[in-house]
Structures are given as C-alpha cells and as structure tokens.
C-alpha cells in the first residue's frame, strides 16, 4: 500500500514531468537541434563553403570591430554614469537613472532610426535649425563607427547596472576604514572603490560585448544600406536569399556568433582570475562623496549626456514622424499627423503588426507566467537535485543572441511535426514558441526570487490547515508571489513587444511583428511612417517602465532591472 508516496514535500506527481517537458521544448530541443546541425555540417563539409568564403571574414571582422568599440563606448558612458550617480551627491539620481535606462529598453531599430533622423542631410531637426549638411553628403552613421557608437548608446545601461550593483554592494566600513587610515576622498576612490568595482566593470563590459555581437536592429538599419554586414545581418541576408545550403550555412554562422559570445565571457573571467573580491563586512548604503562646487559641473555633464543620447534623438524621431514627407523641413505649419493616421487606420500591414505583437506578447507573458509559477515553485521547493541544471537550461535561450535562437527554432520546426504531420514553420506559432523560449528566464527570475522570499512555514501551515496542492497554490503561494509575477508579466510583455531579431527571421506574410514592421517600413523608404510607429512603440515602452517603477517598492530586490 503506497498511498501519498510523495506527500513529504506535498507536490503532485505531475509537477516534475511538467517542468521537464517545458524545459525540453523551450531549451533542450531547439539548442540540441542547432548543435546537431552545426556539428553535422562541420563534419560533412557542408559548412566548408561558408567558412572558406572570403565574404565571411569581412562580416566577422565587422562584428568584432563594432562590438569591441561598442563595448568601449558602453563602458565609458555607462561606467561614468554609474560612478557619478552612485558615489557622489548628485541631485535627481532616480530620474537620471531611469532616463539612462531608456535607450536600452527602446528597440534597437528605433534607436537607429531616431539617430538617422537626427544626423545626416535630411535631418528634420538640423534642417529646422539650418545646420543640415548639404544634400547628397553621406549619412555619417552608415559606417562601422556609427554602428559601434549606437551599440554603445544602446548597451551603456548594461554596464551602468552591473557596475552600480557592484558599487552598492561595497561595504561602507571598507570606505570608512580607509578614511580613518588617513586617505583623502580621491585616494579612497582610487585605491579602494575603483579596484573593488573592477568585477562590476568587467561583467558589464562582457555583457555589453555579447549583446553587441547578437544585435540585429542597429546593423540592419545602419549597415545594410552601406553594405556593411555583421554576422546577424549576414544570417538575415542568407535567409532572404534562400537556397539549398542555407540551413548548413546559417547553423555555422550562428555557431560563430555563439563562439564570439563565449570568447567575450571568457575574457571577462580571465580579467577576474585570481582576484577574489568577495566583499567581507556590512554592505549597505555606500558612503556618498561630496562634490562641492564641482557638483553643478557633474550634473550639467550628466544632463547633457541624457539630452544627447535620449532627448535629441527622440525629438528628431518625433519630428520625422510629424514631417509631411521625408526630407521636407518641419515647421509648425507643415506638421501633420498624417503618418499616425496612416499606420493606425489605413495600412493593413501595421494594423496586423499591432495585433500580432500585442497578441504574441500577451500570450507569451501569460503563458510564461503559468510556466514560471510552477517551475519557480519546483526550483525553490522541489528539493530536486536537478534544480541547478534546470535553472541553467532555462537561462541559456535568453543569454543567446536572438538570431541564434531563431535559427535553432527554424532548424527544429522546418520539417512538419512528427506524428501530427502539421508544420508550424511560417505560422505565428513558431514565433510564439521562440518567444516562450527566449523570455522564459525574464519571467522565471522574478517569480523564483519571490518564492525564495516566502518562508516555507507559510506553506506548511497551510498544509496542516488541510489545504491540498492547488488550494495552497491559489490561496497562499500565488497571492504571495503576485507582485513579482505581475512585474514579470509586464517585463515579458515589454521586451516581447519590442523584439525584432527573433521575429525578423521567423516572420512571413501576415505574421509580421511591430519590430519587423518598423524595419520593413524603413527598408521600403517610408521613413515618416517608420518614425511614427517607432514613436508609438517608445510611448508604450515608457508607459510600461513607469508602471514597473510604480510597482517597484512592492517587489523583491532585482525584479525591476533598473532598481538595485
């Protein structure tokens, strides 16, 4: 007689199989398929064509060069911001931090579009102030350095967050001890704080590099017109010119992206090797240094940076969206909402894109909520020895560049599904599955950390009260993790709505997303329509970030990315 065999931890028998099935579909199968194709084509020589093609090494060089200089720019921008905002007595820190985060949350193709509208001969803003370069002069951003610079702007917040988290963890007593030892503020900064914040710098730089390597939106908009290809845009181009060898080629190319990403991370761990910087002592509010009369200078510098990287490009974007046609000077008389009417009420393509993106993002967010509540519960309470492995597997798809993940799903679902014989390739379902896979980590992390905060006795008390598994989940556990779960829904929705890379490879007629629609509008020369759509997307991003900001107090630490 073996009744209630699993009763000691009180979890139903289907929980473990459910978690395993979810992790198989969302992580193991697509990644395994990609690895298998890559290995097979490497051994069978299928990929030799692409590897020996001299046309390949230029994109590899472009990828490395743009990513490296993009990383440098991100470190300078983000590092400077983090140091100034965290260590010194700057006013309006939270507002500055929030504004500095925005470029990262805005989709990269929108960033690229807004910078294009700001610079170059047909810039509406420059025209309005009479400083536009003469017509026919080249757009300065259509270059390696232009791409690298925008990579820096886009990813600066990653360095900012990483460094800031490290700085906030610095023990206050380490600074105070140095002070008592007779060190001046400057010496403390140079000898204590900067060395101790090296891991944050290195980690932020590595994340920024990896993110640049996988970035598709910026090189697609800035590079393709000038025939500057990076690996992600090369995959896109190969895919557009589909032929028999495409699958083998793109699996090799995505392997190259994977290798570059891993190299970036290896360099980071090498930088940190032999340095054990685990801080000992009370970490808490770090001592804030007084800038005195330099404070105003620092504040002006910070606000100028915000104006240059955020306000001006967005103003230019808005201006372009209000201009009657590309290149026409914008005056109060010529401003028109025509572009907005067009994308919202007339163009079927953008309307479909709205429906698709919002539908996909909602389904992804809600679907992932269900998966992450069960998976998070299992990881925290299951006591399973596989918990570490499962959470690592859940993290990988998010860490991988979107192009690589998209290629994995293409390879997995190019053929009809076994048994049922239906192909989901080319339908919206493949995008949905790829989104579920890609954003699982985004949704799982807040929920898991919320579960960790719930004392296990709360659930045990409910068990003794007589509540079974579903009863406990609905009455006790879910209400307790609800704020984090809500935040995870908004975060996933926010990221999925702005996503371009995955859907750029997976869309087909009728399944385009907002990201794809913006890219296609720009590609076909409807710059003002692309700008108008981008403006709407930016408004949506800001609205959702403000919503999260409002919720931040009720959430566990680390759920809202820009709060630490």
């Amino acid at each position: 007689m073996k009744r209630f065999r699993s009763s000691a931890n009180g979890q139903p028998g289907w929980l473990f199989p459910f978690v395993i099935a979810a992790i198989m579909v969302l992580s193991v199968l697509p990644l395994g398929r990609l690895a298998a194709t890559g290995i097979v084509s490497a051994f069978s020589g299928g990929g030799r064509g692409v590897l020996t093609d001299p046309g390949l090494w230029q994109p590899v060089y472009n990828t490395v060069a743009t990513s490296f200089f993009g990383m440098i720019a991100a470190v300078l921008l983000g590092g400077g911001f983090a140091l100034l905002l965290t260590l010194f007595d700057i006013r309006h820190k939270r507002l500055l931090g929030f504004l500095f985060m925005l470029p990262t949350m805005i989709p990269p193709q929108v960033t690229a579009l807004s910078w294009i509208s700001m610079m170059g001969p047909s810039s509406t803003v420059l025209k309005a102030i009479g400083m536009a370069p003469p017509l026919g002069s080249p757009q300065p951003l259509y270059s390696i350095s232009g791409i690298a610079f925008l990579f820096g702007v886009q990813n600066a917040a990653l360095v900012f967050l990483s460094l800031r988290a490290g700085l906030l963890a610095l023990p206050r007593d380490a600074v105070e001890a140095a002070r008592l030892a007779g060190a001046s503020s400057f010496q403390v900064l140079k000898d204590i704080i900067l060395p101790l914040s090296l891991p944050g710098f290195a980690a932020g730089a590595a994340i920024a590099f990896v993110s640049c390597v996988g970035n598709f939106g910026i090189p697609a908009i800035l590079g393709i017109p000038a025939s500057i290809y990076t690996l992600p845009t090369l995959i896109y181009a190969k895919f557009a010119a589909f032929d028999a060898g495409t699958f083998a080629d793109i699996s090799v190319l995505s392997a190259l992206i994977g290798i570059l990403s891993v190299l970036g991370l290896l360099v980071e761990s090498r930088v940190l090797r032999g340095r054990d910087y685990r801080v000992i002592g009370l970490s808490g509010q770090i001592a804030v240094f007084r800038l005195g009369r330099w404070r105003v200078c620092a504040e002006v510098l910070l606000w100028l940076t915000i104006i240059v990287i955020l306000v001006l490009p967005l103003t230019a974007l808005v201006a372009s969206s209000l201009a009657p046609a590309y290149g026409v000077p914008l005056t109060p008389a010529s401003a028109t909402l025509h572009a907005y009417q067009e994308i919202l009420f007339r163009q079927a393509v953008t309307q479909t894109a709205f429906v698709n993106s919002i539908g996909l993002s909602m389904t992804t967010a809600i679907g992932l909520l269900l998966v992450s509540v069960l998976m998070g519960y299992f990881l925290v309470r299951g006591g399973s020895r596989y918990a570490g492995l499962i959470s690592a597997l859940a993290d990988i798809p998010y860490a991988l560049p979107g192009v690589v993940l998209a290629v994995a799903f293409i390879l997995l679902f190019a053929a009809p599904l076994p048994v049922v014989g239906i192909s989901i390739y080319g339908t919206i379902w493949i995008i949905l599955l790829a989104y579920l896979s890609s954003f699982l980590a985004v949704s799982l992390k807040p929920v898991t950390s919320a579960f960790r905060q719930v004392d296990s006795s709360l659930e045990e008390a409910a068990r003794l009260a007589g509540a079974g598994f579903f009863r406990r989940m609905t009455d006790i556990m879910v209400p307790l993790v609800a704020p984090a779960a809500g935040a995870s829904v908004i975060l996933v929705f926010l990221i999925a709505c702005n996503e371009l890379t995955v859907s750029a490879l997976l869309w087909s007629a009728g399944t385009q997303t907002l990201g794809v629609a913006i890219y296609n509008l720009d590609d076909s020369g409807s710059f003002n329509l692309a700008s108008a759509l981008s403006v709407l997307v930016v408004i949506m991003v800001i609205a959702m970030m403000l919503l999260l900001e409002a919720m931040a107090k009720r959430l566990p630490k680390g759920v809202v990315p820009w709060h630490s």
Partner: protein
Amino acid sequence: MAQLSLDRMSKSFAATDRAAVDGVSLTVREGGFLALLGPSGCGKTTVLRMIAGFEQPTGGAIRLGSRVLADGDVSVAPEHRNMAMVFQSYALWPHMSVADNVGYPLKVRKIATEERRRRVASALSAVRLEPYAGRRPADLSGGQRQRVALARCLVTDPDVVLLDEPLANLDRHLRQEMEETFREFHQRSGATMVYVTHDQAEAMALATDVAVMSEGKVLQLATPQEIYARPEGRQVGMLIGQGSVIKLPSPAGDTRALTEDMMGTLLRTMGEEPVADVLVRPQDVEIADGGVAARVISALFEGERYAVKLSLPDGQMLRAFSRLPVRIGETVPVLVRAGWRL
C-alpha cells in the same frame, strides 16, 4: 483524540551520513503535554516535523490511536492528519486579515460561512484578540502574532497541536505571559500537545512530560518533577537545573539518593576508586562549619543571594548559593546536604 506514539522512529538525511533522529520511541498520552527538550541540533525539531508529516521517517512508525500515520510504506499527508502547529516564525499569511488567517483551516474544510464566523470569533476571544480581527498580521506585535497562530490551532479541534520553539522570538516579559496562555490553551482544548524547546525552564513550567534529547536519541522521558529529582545519566543531569556533576568514589550498595552523611563520607574519601558521577544541586550546598574545605573561584551577586563557584581540594568545580558574601580566593568549609548518583 487518541494516544500519539512513536515507535523506534529514525531519520537520516541523504546529505549527511549521521542519523538526525535515531530510534526514538515515545508515547504521549491523550491530552498530555510533552516537551521535547534538548540543545540545538539534537533532532527535536526533526521529530516534530515527522509527527506533522513534513518529513518522512526513514525507519519506524508513527501512530495516532490505532491509525498509522507513517511507517515504511504509508505516509499520511500533513493535510490529512488533523494536526495544527505553531511555528517559530508564526507562519501567518501576510496577505490575509487576522480573522482570515484563523478561519482558513475551516474554509478549507468547507465549513459554512456563518458557522465559520462564530468559531473564528470564539477562537479569537480565547486569545483575547477579538478587536484585532480585521487587522493584517504585519500590524500586530510579536506576542499578538503568536496568539493569532494559537487561535488558528484552536479553531479546528485538532488531535495534536505541535509547537516549534514558539517563544524563541519573544522577549522575556512576553514569554511569561505566553506560557500562561499556552497552559490555559492546553487546559481548555484538552488537545495532545508536543512542544519543542531548548529552554528547560519553559519545558518544566508547561509540560506534563519532558523528553530530553541529545544527538537524535531520547535520553529520558518522565514528568518534570521526576526528571529534576532523578535524572538519568550525566547528560540529563547537566542539562536540567544548574547542578554540578562531580566525580566521587562509588557509594556502597549502589544507592542513588545520597544523604548528607553519605556525601560527607564520599567527599572525604575523594580520589578512591571506583568513581561515579554525582549530581549536586547548588541549593544543596551550604557554606557551614564542619564541611570539606573549598576555595572560592567566583561569586556573583544575583540579588536574593550570591551564586558561588567553588573548587574542591582535587580541583573539581561545585556550584553553591550563599546568602552571605564570600571573598574570591578565600577557603570556606562546605557541607553538601544531598546528592544524586547519575
């Protein structure tokens, strides 16, 4: 309600080889109040969690009356054991009001709303928290939270109430008040109670039976009076009360309760073989003429008396109380009125 019995119950965790609980057999009579007393890490909480059903014994059985709760094959889930527990952390659900917390076990048992309201009100009045029914746990003090947790136990008439160091997070003043509440609760409900604590005073004051545990084993199970007067073995002797255990020559005839005369003889023949452990309570040690000479090591003024540490001629340490001040380093004559051979 019925008698709760543990039969050679063991538990070892996969992570460590050591058995956390090693063949514990216990019987708590119906309506009894058993205290599991021992230092931290002795396995008392694991025993409690196995009774609740949160851990499965790796060996042995747990029965409630004729019903098997757990043995090698069967394990009744905690939700079906009809037990209630007061957790050290109180485990109140922060998103529910006090009344909802208390009423939750009834809600799960699908008791009608009207009946539920009545029983919640009566449970809250038993712990004198009626005015707080609508509050959130976060708005209550530690002692009030503890009483909510207690009311949540009261409400379902459980067969067994388990208490896991319920007073550990409270200050001394509140502890006394809560001890009174627990005693009252036990009398009123008549439930079988198992109480885990590392505080011997708490165990003595509350329980009808005390089980002293160490390293996963039960060393002695008896009434508080019995444990105090006749402890079994050196460990129990050292754990209960503030007595000193000293090595003296074995008394003749294996007598256990030693009189003043016998103690005097033993103290004078100190050093002779074979030796036995003898427990001496400080209140049985008197500084008076005619005794053995002992040197004062320390003397602490405690208000009503001095707590004195003495060193016997062979260096063994003896605790005593003295109403008169003594000087450190001074040699005083010591009479021992009684002793207990362990």
